[in-house]
């Protein structure tokens, strides 16, 4: 798994590629925590190159949702591949945070 970080319209965008599994989920959590600890309260996760997410990965997504629930905080995912979208949808996560088709739509819509 690889993570690249960019800033756009006042938000931190973490673009993740590869598998989010037992081995890599802690790395994702660390990267998100680093962004939040740095004072960023608008986090967008671009999942366009995420091919798989395990239950450990789902837990990281929920832990982030818990940290970003103050007024003005923003947290969303975008560009999900079919398999990952299906897991999030059927697990019920789409009611906790928003999922957008693209970075642009996320930044315009959240």
């Amino acid at each position, binding site marked *: 798994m690889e993570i690249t970080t960019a800033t756009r319209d006042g938000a931190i965008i973490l673009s993740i590629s590869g598998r989010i599994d037992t081995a890599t989920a802690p790395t994702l959590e660390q990267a998100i925590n680093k962004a939040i600890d740095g004072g960023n309260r608008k986090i967008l996760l671009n999942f366009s190159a995420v091919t798989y*997410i395990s239950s450990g990965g789902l837990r990281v997504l929920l832990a982030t949702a818990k940290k970003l629930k103050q007024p003005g905080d923003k947290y969303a995912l975008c560009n999900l591949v079919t398999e990952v979208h299906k*897991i999030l949808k059927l697990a019920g996560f789409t009611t906790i945070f928003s999922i957008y088709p693209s970075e642009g739509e996320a930044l315009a819509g959240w």
Partner: protein
Amino acid sequence: MPGGSEPLISQQWQPVPGAPAAQIYPFIRKIDTLSSDSCLIQTPDIILLIDPGGFPEQAENLVRITEELRKETDRPVFVILTHAHIDHFSGTVDIPAFAHTGVFVFAVQEAGAAVLESGDGKMTQADLLGQAIRPFPIGLPLVTAERAGAAGIPVSLAFSNGAEVTITRGETPGGLAWERIGFGTGPVLDVYHTPGHSPDSICLQVGGLLFIGDVLFAANPGIAGLCGWDQSALICSLDGIESLLSSGTVEVVLPGHGRVIAAADAKRMFASIRSDARALENIAELNRERAIETAAFAEECMEQVNELFTIMAGRLYYVTYVMEELGEDDIAEEVSRLIKGDAIDELLEVFRSFADEHHKGGGVSIHLALKAGQVIGKLQRSFDGPELSRIIDPALVQRAARLLSDYTTMLRGFCPPRERAECELIGHLESLVTGLSVPACSDSDLLASDDDDSTFTRLLLNRIGMQPLLSDVTFTFSAGEKSLVVAIDHDEFKDLVTYILEDLVGIGADAITLTIHRDNDCALITLRGTGCTASDAAKTEGGFLGRLSDRAGGTLTSVTAGTEREYSIRIPGLI
């Protein structure tokens, strides 16, 4: 140095309990299907090498130790195989010391001798494991038919390695054909014929040690049904071995794979194996073709298992999240314990890594099938189905459990009959989609329960955990007839339709239409999702859903075009 009834230590010389003149050097490996454990025993008269294993380096190491012993005191060496499966001897085939020196004389039960001298790829399991086998000579066939006629009369034999042995034939009180082999003045070797795992399986006793070959695994999925496996012979052998264990002469049991076992523990294990073996009537032979088919199903199955378990764990995390939001931390903690998410993730990862290596290295199908069986067995123990079903959708939990069970059934070699029964399709489908559209717990149920804390909590968890699959989509049901009766497998059909609806919801369909109508003598069910966010093709024909449809009694096709995906299930034979 350990002795008596204490466990034996691998790769260390130690006294043989009950035979002070003998010493044992066990070579105990982690259990796998590639190579057996091995063992050296030395007495003043002889060196015995039991099951030299499947790896050349393992056999070479044993040869080296044997040569050192012979330098100290030159003695004949017998290589005794508990049975002629390739993982117990193939490490020796390219080592010159075994083939040319005349020092090592191979001994195996008479049926195994015939197998090895003819290079039989099926009975040695070489074909199943994708290995080649060359014939080689057996100097001492054991428990022979010829000696059966001379029970109680010692027979003397001389060998190229200088050994002179005396063999006396008999039968144990437990009904096992038995030979006692004397090599001189030292301890004797008792050989018991225990067919079942293979026709030539034997157990060996020296002092208080009983070597049992692979009988401990003979009823396991992926082992039972191997070419040469025999259920009734296995049960008789198990009875005979239990009788030996009850005789009080055995202190330690050495299986062909894995750690040694105290005799009392082995006795309990044998009772359980016998019970398992009794349930294995009419299982299919586990040959190369079935191994390939099982491995293919294993991969499909694990892909679905991965998805279902991730969704189930995700649902529980969701419930936990909501309960924490409500300040109900204790309940959240309790809910989070219902599934071992980390353990499940690790198991799924283990299988994926194994499968990746398998495909890279051109691995053998039976290994992949067995790995899946091992992982699935652990998955079955990693979640509490009934408790989970009280919180998340029971159909999801049942489907996961059924998937695991279906794989185990296939690996075991059972071919369950298709349980097709008449079904009025329109009513059946209406009932199914209604169940997927309304909450399991209604608003009024929830409101009516607020006087009772525990009932309210249960219903609240239920309400949060069981989100109706079709609650966020526009769903249309359309039937072209009033009634259509067909023969289907109800459970498989229900699973099929649910998997399809989950797929359509999962890929973001905002509207789903289910139509059902007559098409000549078939019922045709179409499920179409529109407004989908995905455009890649669905896996149907030949894939998991295709096979599921076949088991349900229909044929499945699918088309994906732009933002629409359509599945069609055709069920023949309208009644």
